[in-house]
């Protein structure tokens, strides 16, 4: 147990940089860090630190962090909304800038329907972004490294897109759209072939969405964890570690943003494909 805490402190200190390591415990703890318990290495987080890495709470890490992110977002949004002013302060200004940027981004795809779908898509983007980024702060853990979290987000997008289709097109046109929008005799003959293809295509979307986000964030966090372990293993004789993972934080920041963007972008396009087409004739 003591060894575990020593290892946790060393690993955490290595994330901050060598200057904090004066407080870290004994040297040989470093040799065992970097996730040696089989499977992909992962860094300790706040929950595994408090519970010692065992116990039932430890299986809820992803849920705890996902709820914490949601709570954080709610608190930020509420505090901005409650104290909103005509002439915004710096905090309100920053939030307004993010919302406006999101609006402009989605407006370039959805056009006049943006206002209706902005709340869902914007929340999705910022939620995924913070979910990805929280794994990079010390003692944080990215909920996106759990397939359950990304799959639930993707299923939400899937259901929302289908519901949008049924609501905006009507049930008849929705089925017509799923059948490949046949117009002539050849089109109607192709329906038995096209309908299953479109249904499978719709069902494949949440799979690819969730696997993409999960794989990218897992890969990135594993990479950082491996280099933390390497940085400690190099100087295993001393309690000091080298922050070898530092360059990969920038890569991680970039990848996290791109993945959140791609998830939102694809969700937007799935919703766009369900909207009536004549409104979007260019």
């Amino acid at each position: 147990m003591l060894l575990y805490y020593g290892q946790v402190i060393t690993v955490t200190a290595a994330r901050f940089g060598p200057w904090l390591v004066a407080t870290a415990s004994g040297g040989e703890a470093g040799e065992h860090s970097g996730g040696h318990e089989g499977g992909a290495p992962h860094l300790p987080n706040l929950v595994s630190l408090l519970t010692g890495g065992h116990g039932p709470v430890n299986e809820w890490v992803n849920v705890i962090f996902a709820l914490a992110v949601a709570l954080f977002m709610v608190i930020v949004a509420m505090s901005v909304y409650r104290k909103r002013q005509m002439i915004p302060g710096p905090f309100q200004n920053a939030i307004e800038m993010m919302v406006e940027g999101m609006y402009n981004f989605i407006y370039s795809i959805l056009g006049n329907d943006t206002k209706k779908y902005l709340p869902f898509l914007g929340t999705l983007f910022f939620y995924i972004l913070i979910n990805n980024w929280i794994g990079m702060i010390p003692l944080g853990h990215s909920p996106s490294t759990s397939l359950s979290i990304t799959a639930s987000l993707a299923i939400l997008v899937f259901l929302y897109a289908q519901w949008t289709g049924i609501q905006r097109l009507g049930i008849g046109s929705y089925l017509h759209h799923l059948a490949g929008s046949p117009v002539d005799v050849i089109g109607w003959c192709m329906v038995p072939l096209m309908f299953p293809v479109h249904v499978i295509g719709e069902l494949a979307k949440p799979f690819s969405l969730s696997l993409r986000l999960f794989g990218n964030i897992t890969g990135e966090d594993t990479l950082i964890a491996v280099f933390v372990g390497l940085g400690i293993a190099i100087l295993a004789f001393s309690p000091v570690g080298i922050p070898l993972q530092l360059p990969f934080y920038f890569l991680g920041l970039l990848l996290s943003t791109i993945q959140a963007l791609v998830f939102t972008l694809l969700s937007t396009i799935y919703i766009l494909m369900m909207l009536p087409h004549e409104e979007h004739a260019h």
Partner: protein
Amino acid sequence: MDYQATLALAAPLAVGLAAIGSGLGIGKAVGAAMEAIGRQPEAAGKIQTAMIIGAAFIEALTIYVFIVFILASGKIGN
């Protein structure tokens, strides 16, 4: 070679092979996008959006292999 050795050889190799394909694909996509932006800089935003979508689809293939690798690596060395 026994089962373990085969798995330990094949799983990382699969990721590498998938990365070659994805690298070529993304290189081609980004190269074409850069060319298009150079030819028509005012359409940079639209080209970038389309490029990111395409790159996401290409790179998803590597990610699928990576997930297979994670599944397979759990069975190595027990």
